[in-house]
C-alpha cells in the first residue's frame, strides 16, 4: 500500500506538480525533533535563550520537522538523557552549545543524534564575529539539518531581508534584517526613503528611492562601503521594480512626463526604453520568461490588474481574470502571486488576500484568509513567499510556505513596513 502511495506521489511530482493545487492531506510524516540546551554558564543567558527560541522557530518554519517545544537540558558530550527522549517519540535530537570568545566571537557547536539508536549523525561548528548577528548561527544550523534529511532547501533563511518602514508621516528608514526581524540594522535614515530592492543575488548593494531632493531619485548603495550612486531621477515618482539576473538591467516605474510608465534601464549603456504607453497607470514591472517579457500592474480595464507584454513591444495580455483590485504581484517561473482587495471595511474580514496562479493552468489558489496581506515577494526556491501583513497601525513580515500551506508572522514592534525585498 505504501509503495502505491509513493508511486502516485512520485507521478504527481514528476509529471504534473502544480503549486496552485493545495495539498490537503500530507501522507509522509515529518521527523519529530527536540533541541537540547548544552551551553555552559559562560554565555549570556539572554543570548542563549533567544538562540534556542530562534532555532526552534526556524525548524518549525521549514515545515519539514515535527518540533518539540519542550525545554531540554543535556550535557554536550555523551548520550545521557537521549533514550528517555526517544521513549517520548523524539526521533532526532539537536544538541546545541553556545560559547563566546574574549574577542566577542560567538561559536555554536551542534551535534545531531538519531535518538532511536543513540547514533551521532554529525557535529558542526558555526562561528560569527559580529555578536549581534548570532541568530544567523541558528539559521545556518537549520539550513544544514534540513539539507541533511534531504528536504527541499531552506537556504533562503540565511538571506538578508531589506525593507522600508514608516516612522512617522513623511519619514521612513531602510533596514536590513533577517527573515524573522530579530536582527535589524538601519541602513538609510532621515527623510523619506522607499522601495529598497537588492541589486544582485550577492546582496552587496541595493537600490532605493529618495524623496529628499528636488525630485524623487533612484540611488544605488554599496552595503559594505556605503557608497551612494545616483541612477536616475524623475518628476512625480521613480521606483526600481525589478533587477535582471545579471544585475545590468532594471525595470523602473517613472514619470518624466507626469505619466507613470514602466521603463527598461540598461545600466551599461545608459539607454532608457519606455515599455508601456497606456495613458493611465502602468507600474510594478517584473521580468519573466527569461527576461523576454514583463508582468506588470495596469488599470487599463478601469481597475488595477495583472498583465504581460514582450520587452520588444506587441500586444498586452491579461494574466488574471479574478478579482477587481489586484494591485501588486510577484513572479517566479510560471507562477504569479498577487494581492487582491476583497472588501472596503478594514475592520471586516477578507480585505486583502494573496492568491497564486499558474500561467499554464486555470487553477487559482487562495493563500491567505482574512486581514490585510500585501506586497508578496517570491523567494528563490519558488516555494516561499514573503509578504507584509497589516493589523491596524502595526505591521508584520509574513512567511508563506506554499508546499505545506502554512504561514508565519514576525511583527515589527516600531514603525510600519512600507515595502520589502529579499
Amino acid at each position, binding site marked *: 500500500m505504501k509503495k502505491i502511495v509513493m508511486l502516485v506521489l512520485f507521478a504527481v511530482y514528476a509529471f504534473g506538480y502544480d503549486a496552485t493545487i493545495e495539498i490537503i492531506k500530507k501522507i509522509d510524516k515529518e521527523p519529530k525533533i527536540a533541541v537540547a540546551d548544552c551551553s555552559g554558564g559562560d554565555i549570556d543567558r539572554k543570548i542563549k535563550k533567544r538562540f534556542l527560541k530562534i532555532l526552534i522557530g526556524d525548524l518549525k518554519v521549514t515545515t519539514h520537522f515535527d518540533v518539540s517545544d519542550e525545554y531540554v537540558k543535556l550535557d554536550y558530550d555523551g548520550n545521557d538523557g537521549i533514550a528517555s527522549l526517544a521513549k517520548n517519540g523524539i526521533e532526532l535530537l539537536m544538541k546545541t552549545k553556545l560559547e563566546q570568545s574574549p574577542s566577542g566571537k560567538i561559536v555554536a557547536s551542534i551535534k545531531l543524534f538519531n535518538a532511536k539508536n543513540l547514533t551521532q549523525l554529525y557535529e558542526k561548528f558555526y562561528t560569527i564575529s559580529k555578536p549581534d548577528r548570532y541568530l544567523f548561527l541558528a539559521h545556518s544550523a537549520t539550513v544544514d539539518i534540513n539539507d541533511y534529511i534531504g528536504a527541499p532547501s531552506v537556504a533562503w533563511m540565511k538571506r538578508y531581508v531589506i525593507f522600508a518602514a514608516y516612522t512617522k508621516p513623511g519619514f521612513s528608514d531602510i533596514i536590513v534584517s533577517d527573515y524573522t526581524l530579530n536582527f535589524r540594522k538601519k541602513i538609510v535614515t532621515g527623510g523619506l526613503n522607499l*522601495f529598497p530592492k537588492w541589486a544582485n543575488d550577492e546582496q552587496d548593494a541595493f537600490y532605493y528611492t529618495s524623496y529628499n531632493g528636488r525630485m524623487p531619485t533612484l540611488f544605488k548603495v554599496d552595503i559594505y562601503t556605503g557608497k551612494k550612486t545616483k541612477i536616475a531621477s524623475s518628476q512625480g515618482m521613480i521606483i526600481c521594480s525589478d533587477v535582471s539576473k545579471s544585475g545590468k538591467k532594471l525595470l523602473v*516605474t517613472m514619470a518624466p512626463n507626469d505619466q507613470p510608465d514602466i521603463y527598461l534601464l540598461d545600466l551599461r549603456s545608459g539607454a532608457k526604453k519606455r515599455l508601456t504607453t497606456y495613458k493611465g497607470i502602468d*507600474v510594478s514591472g517584473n521580468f519573466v520568461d527569461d527576461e523576454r517579457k514583463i508582468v506588470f500592474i495596469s488599470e487599463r480595464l478601469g481597475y*488595477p490588474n495583472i498583465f504581460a507584454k514582450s520587452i520588444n513591444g506587441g500586444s498586452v495580455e491579461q494574466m488574471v481574470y479574478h478579482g477587481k483590485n489586484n494591485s501588486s504581484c510577484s513572479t517566479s517561473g510560471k507562477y504569479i502571486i498577487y494581492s487582491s482587495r476583497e472588501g*472596503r471595511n478594514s475592520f471586516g474580514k477578507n480585505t486583502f488576500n494573496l492568491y497564486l496562479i499558474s500561467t499554464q493552468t486555470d487553477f487559482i489558489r487562495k493563500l491567505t484568509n482574512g486581514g490585510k496581506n500585501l*506586497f508578496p515577494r517570491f523567494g528563490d526556491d519558488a516555494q516561499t513567499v514573503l509578504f507584509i501583513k*497589516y493589523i491596524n*497601525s502595526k505591521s508584520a513580515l509574513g512567511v508563506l510556505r506554499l508546499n505545506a500551506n502554512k504561514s508565519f508572522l514576525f511583527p515589527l514592534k516600531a514603525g510600519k513596513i512600507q515595502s520589502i525585498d529579499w
Partner: protein
Amino acid sequence: MKNSLIFGILFTVLFFFGCAQKAPELANENSITGIAGSTPEITNDSQISNMEGVDESASYGSVDERIAAIEQGVEPIYFATDSYTISPSEHRKIEANAQVFNSELARDLSIKLEGNCDEWGTDEYNYALGLKRAKSAKDALSVAGVDEARMALISYGESKPICSEHNEACWQQNRRVDFKLLP
C-alpha cells in the same frame, strides 16, 4: 470658512499690492476712493510713485512668510476611493486656487502639486495613483489659467497621512492633492 479665508486673502493681496500697482492708471480720485474706501489721502503723485516702487514681498519678512500667507488661502483637492477624477464639488476649489496662484502676490512662484493616498495599499500602484491625482489637478489648474510651466508634480502615496485613524472620514482626508508654493 475656507471660502471666506480665500476671499479674505485675495482681498488683502489686491488691496495692498494690486491697487498700488494699478493706481497710476486711475486718473481720478473718485476711482481711488471707490476702491479703497478709506484712502482719500492717496492723492498726490509722490506718494503713488513711492508705492509703485514697493516690492510685493516687502511687507513680509521673507519669501517664506509670503508663501505661508498665500498657502493659507489654498485648499486641498479631495478624491473618491481609487479615483483620480476631480469631482464637480472640487472644481470650485480648483477655480479658487487658480485665482490665488495667478494673483500678483503668487505669480512669480512655482507650484508643487503633491498627490496623496489613503492607507489602502502600500505598493507602487498607490504612488502612481497619487501621481495621477496630482496630474488631474495640474490639468484642471491649467484649464483655469495657471501656466503649466509653473507646476511640478510629486506623489507621496500613503506616506504623508494627515489623519491616522482607521475610518472612512479619515481616509477621505488622506486622498488629496496638496499645493505647495516654491520660490
